[in-house]
């Protein structure tokens, strides 16, 4: 895979002009906007049918494995769909009434890219408010993004690393951070 610089240099082949920092950022901003507006079905349609969504626990090595250690979330696509179904259900008591959220993202780095796949990192701070409490979830996401027909971008893998030490302050993760 080719290391891609953050400046847009449309010189070495088609894929570097596709996987620019600006293109990736636009996609991630769109993802965050869908989540902020609780447009969960549209958000789900951003994923490939074999996608994986994971949130490791906070005390981990750089490359934790959900086969060997406890995570908070390790969803294959079927479970991710079920999570969305649950979050839309008024019987999802921990998110009913729904919390208000905003996801600030930035520090976007295209770590590597080839014709069809890019690895992208972003930093995030997600604010969640419910009643008189506000929870803050800082961290970074690592994405594997795939290029599909018609220049569509889909998420094949999203791993959200929380920059926290345990969840003593927040108590739960009931939203997609």
């Amino acid at each position, binding site marked *: 895979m080719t290391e891609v610089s953050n400046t847009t240099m449309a010189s070495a082949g088609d894929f570097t002009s596709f996987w620019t920092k600006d293109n990736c950022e636009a996609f991630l901003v769109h993802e965050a906007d869908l989540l902020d507006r609780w447009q969960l079905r549209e958000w789900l349609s951003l994923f490939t049918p074999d996608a994986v969504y994971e949130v490791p626990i906070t005390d981990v090595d750089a490359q934790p494995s*959900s086969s060997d*250690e*406890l*995570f*908070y*979330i390790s969803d294959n696509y079927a479970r991710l769909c079920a999570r969305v179904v649950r979050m839309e259900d008024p019987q999802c*008591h921990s998110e009913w009434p729904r919390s208000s959220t905003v996801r600030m993202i930035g520090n976007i780095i295209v770590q590597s890219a080839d014709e069809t796949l890019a690895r992208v990192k972003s930093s995030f701070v997600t604010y969640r408010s419910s009643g008189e409490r506000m929870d803050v979830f800082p961290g970074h996401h690592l994405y594997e993004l795939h290029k599909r027909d018609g220049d569509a971008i889909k998420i094949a893998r999203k791993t959200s690393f929380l920059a926290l030490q*345990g969840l003593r302050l927040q*108590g739960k993760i*009931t939203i997609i951070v």
Partner: protein
Amino acid sequence: MSLRKNGEFLTSNFVRDQASEGLFKVSREAFVSKSILDLERERIFDRCWLYLGHSSELPDPNRFLTREVGGRPLIFNRDRAGEFRAYFNTCPHRGALLERRPCGKSMGFKCFYHGWSFRNDGVFATKDVKKSYPANFGADGSNDLVRVPRLEQYQGFWFINFDAGAIGLEDYLADVRGIIDLIVDQSPSGVEVIKGSHEYSIDANWKLLAENSYDSYHALETHSTYFNYLKTSLGVDRISPPKQSSAFDLGNGHATIESEAPWGRPVARWVPSFGDAAIADFQAIEQEVTERVGVDRAERILRRDRNMVIFPNLVLNDNIGLIIRTFYPCSPGSMRVDSWALGAVGEGSVARKRRLDNFLEFLGPGGFATPDDATALESAQRGYQNAKFAGWNDISRGVLKAHPAKDDEHQMRTWWRQWARLMERSDD
């Protein structure tokens, strides 16, 4: 509401145990009162055996971990000879936390403040003290790490007690031992804590999580979204009521519920979400367990789920996975919760992943169920703001039955009776 009369705790102000009349009520003051919490710290947390950790977390000599238990930061370690030890994590010099890492391997401990050092069997080992201290400084052991008064284990589950005169752990556990044996017998090589833990919190009184952890009555209501998911993944329209549903008093305030259940069970109930490739694995597990322990015991191990609360604050559930959960009050209205997953020693990556996925679907701060349990407890804690006027919880379900089912409340009454007994006991 009077806490005491003539210096004694008035149980009847907090627990109305009128079982023969079909009534059992608990005062909501018990969940909001600071005086009650202070008395619980003294008469329950400083008197009962509290879970510390599992042998598998310290697999070699010189390993250590640090953990807060019963509100006190401790070091749990193995010395150079491999012996298990528990110390208060407080430097004998000026009281700083001696070891600040969560875990590791070390021949000794050194305080970063003034450099005081100790062997990992607790003995004072600071060099160059002769010039500034008396010649026999520390010879009487007064500079050594302070040991937690009692440390004992059962089947690799280690417990501490701050009361030096407490009865032995095995006596304390009573019939809990048989339930722990069923867990350990799931695997030919025993069980181990899987790397990682869930450290979280709930804005509710700690006793509510004790109740919730073996409350079956709430399952279909609170967790309807989980059951909808289960029905879809099982391909069924409804979930049948559980068979063989019971609740057992295990002695000393401990209790367990037990029944068959519809969800996947690593040892050993296959469900479609495990995949067809796993069917052969499950057959092999069933065969191995049956050959090793016999048909009747295997039936209980393979087919029946159990939720057990060991008084006061240890949950050992053997259902969707194997979970260890402890919780401790920070204040009357908040608690910190810690949980770990156990797995079979020697199970391969595929089986471990399957077990962990099953666990995470339901359990933990990101699961489909635990967050709703936490929300229910937090909702109750808010409701208790009205305790002065709406003051009593009803825990009467099934109180007249000879054989209570798991969705009755016999297990909670067992817990509260022990709570009342201990709270009433005046200091010796």
